[in-house]
């Protein structure tokens, strides 16, 4: 019985496989200093930015792609990728009416109505399609509080001092192969600054979307929360289906100054590849935050997409009494591979971290948790609690856990719990007997299993995340 159910569930097709027909301004494939100069000049960037990129490119040229993650894939040919693609729109837009109607249609297909989002949820969105932001809303409300929320390109033009001060301070150019590549070629992303003592009155949200065949997407996000401020940031993504692999190598940097709090939530649903494991997005992302005294950074992620994922949202707990949290649901199905987890680096005294990781593997996929908890010699009374659970569906998938613990201070308290379970036929039959069909039963059980993480998401996002879990794990009904 279980085999049939699983076949059905794992046969679920990616719902968002379509391409929208928008004219693009695209640079020919290949990467060298000239391409970087071209990107920089197309974006009308200041000299320091170009130099920064070139320095990153030179560093990257000498690096080699890491092979320690527990994933196998054909390495991308970096000379076959086009590094810049922007919808042909040059002037800045003030309202949705000015947006390319084709683009709006795309959002419609995804079920994202910006108008509705605006009206009903009070979410300001900075929509990123193929690397260039085309619509920004609620800017005025935010501006009243002194909050800056704009595309990275705009920030480089309008707030160069802030960008220059913080860019690369959390994830340095030479941090790793993909971070270096991103630093050299990033085309856009989001920038956010919350002034001292300001509580951001709404959830800030960005929808990312890869749209152009063969273009890698190199997003750069920088979020700075000044002393005593608070912000909740939502990042959600979908991508159209493709035969060739698409590379996504984003960098996200968070700066939480003294007493600040940042909540960063992600729902990721990029094309995972088809039923044969063909195609799909390579998601090699570096996300990291730094916490000053008494501050807090909380990462929440629901990851259901991408063919290969390599991602460790991390916290450097530099200041005393700072807090880092990581809540994650990672779903792999069919031939997907994920090597994901977090790093909690305790440097300050009385620092605290919590890791709740829920992996779900189905089909022939492999799901690995890799986490590092490091307590530095000066970090008196550091505390960590980690819980890593794996849920297996069927008997052709794999779940792996690689926890690393390095404690250099004898007062550290580190707890690690791990479980592995399977959705039992007993559970499914019990639900069936109560009138709940098998697909709904699996959705119910999976949502229950992920509850601790889903509870961390803002309400409207949690609903979307639940839907995503269902879509990723169920066969299309009827």
């Amino acid at each position, binding site marked *: *019985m279980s085999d049939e159910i699983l076949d059905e569930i794992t046969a679920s097709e990616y719902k968002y496989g379509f391409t929208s027909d928008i004219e693009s301004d695209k640079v020919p494939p290949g990467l060298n200093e000239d391409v970087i100069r071209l990107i920089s000049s197309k974006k009308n960037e200041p000299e320091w930015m170009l130099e920064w990129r070139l320095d990153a490119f030179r560093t990257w040229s000498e690096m080699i792609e890491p092979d320690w993650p527990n994933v196998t894939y054909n390495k991308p040919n970096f000379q076959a990728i086009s590094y810049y693609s922007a919808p042909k729109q040059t002037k800045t837009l003030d309202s949705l009416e000015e947006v390319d109607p084709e683009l709006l249609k795309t959002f419609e297909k995804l079920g994202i109505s910006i108008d509705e989002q605006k009206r009903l949820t009070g979410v300001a969105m900075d929509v990123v399609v193929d690397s260039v932001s085309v619509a920004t809303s609620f800017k005025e409300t935010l501006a009243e509080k002194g909050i800056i929320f704009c595309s990275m390109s705009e920030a480089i033009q309008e707030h160069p001092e802030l960008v220059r001060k913080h860019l690369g301070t959390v994830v340095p150019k030479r941090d790793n192969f993909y971070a270096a590549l991103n630093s050299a070629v990033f085309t856009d992303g989001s920038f956010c600054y919350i002034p001292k003592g300001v509580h951001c009155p709404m959830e800030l949200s960005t929808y990312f979307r890869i749209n152009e065949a063969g273009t890698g997407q190199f997003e750069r996000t920088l979020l700075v929360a000044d002393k005593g401020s608070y912000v909740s940031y939502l990042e959600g993504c979908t991508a159209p289906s493709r035969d060739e692999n698409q590379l996504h190598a984003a960098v996200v940097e968070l700066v939480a100054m003294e007493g600040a709090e940042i909540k960063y939530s992600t729902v990721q649903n990029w094309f995972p590849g088809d039923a044969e494991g063909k195609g799909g997005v390579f998601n090699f992302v570096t996300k990291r935050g730094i916490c000053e005294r008494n501050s807090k950074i909380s990462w929440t992620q629901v990851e259901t997409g991408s063919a290969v994922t390599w991602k460790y949202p991390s916290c450097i707990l530099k200041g005393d009494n700072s807090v880092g949290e990581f809540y994650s649901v990672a779903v792999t199905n069919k031939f997907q591979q994920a090597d994901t987890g977090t790093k909690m680096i305790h440097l300050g005294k009385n620092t605290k971290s919590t890791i709740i990781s829920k992996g779900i593997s189905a089909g022939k996929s492999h799901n690995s948790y890799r986490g590092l908890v490091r307590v530095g010699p000066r970090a008196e009374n550091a505390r960590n609690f980690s819980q890593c659970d794996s849920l297996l569906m069927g008997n052709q998938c794999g779940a792996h856990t690689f926890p690393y613990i390095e404690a250099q201070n004898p007062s550290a308290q580190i707890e690690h719990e791990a479980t592995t379970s399977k959705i*039992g*036929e*007993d*559970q499914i*039959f*019990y*639900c*069936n*007997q*109560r*009138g*709940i*069909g*098998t697909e*709904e039963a699996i959705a*119910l*059980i999976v*949502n*229950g*299993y*992920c*509850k*601790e993480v889903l509870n961390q998401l803002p309400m409207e996002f949690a609903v979307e995340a639940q839907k995503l879990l269902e879509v990723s794990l169920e066969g299309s009904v009827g």
Partner: protein
Amino acid sequence: MIRINDLQARVEEKEILSGINLEINPGEVHAIMGPNGSGKSTLSSVIAGREDYEVTGGTIDFEGEDLLNLDPEERAHKGIFLSFQYPVEIPGVTVSNFIKTAINESRKGRGEEPMEAREMLAKMREKTALLEMDKSYLSRSLNEGFSGGEKKRNEIFQMAMLEPKLAILDETDSGLDIDALRIVANGVNKLRSEDNAVLVITHYQRLLDYIEPDFVHVLYNGKIVKSGDKNLALELEAKGYDWIKEENV
């Protein structure tokens, strides 16, 4: 309501039911008793549609419909409820969320609209009170960390919420202390009506002190070997099952 005719079933290669005949009419309470391994739980699982059991012969007719052709959830939509001997745990899913899903999925299966939130809430209050359950039950994870008695009470709570036509109580008395037994039995009795029926499956007679059966059947080696009224249960209690076994060697 339900007519079971010459039902045969096996699990893997082993035959467990070898020709069961049983008819239950609306308003009736039937009890099936028998020693361990006689096929009692298999019978309840086959009626509910568990796929581990292969039906090799016979028919089950439920209100004019061939039950064996239906999926377990479709049988539930038609009004068949099984109180499990060993209810499963579903971590992170609250009792209220679970029962809400069950009710609305059943309604959907019957082509009805979902129950309104207010009505649902009122009904939950009423039924928790009926089973003398604390309201905090509703927000606990389904059966997780429940005591044996709490699990059984939760089964009857779900039965009260779903209002089935035929309720099968599989060893509902096992693991219950005398107070819980009284509460559970009281709950079942209050739900009895002219239109529904109850099939009580039990090893011991004591539950039948509280839920009085109209008919008692003795199951042995996959067959109903004796039927009678409630006095048969008392006789079994006094004499044990050995005389049944001797009669049926």
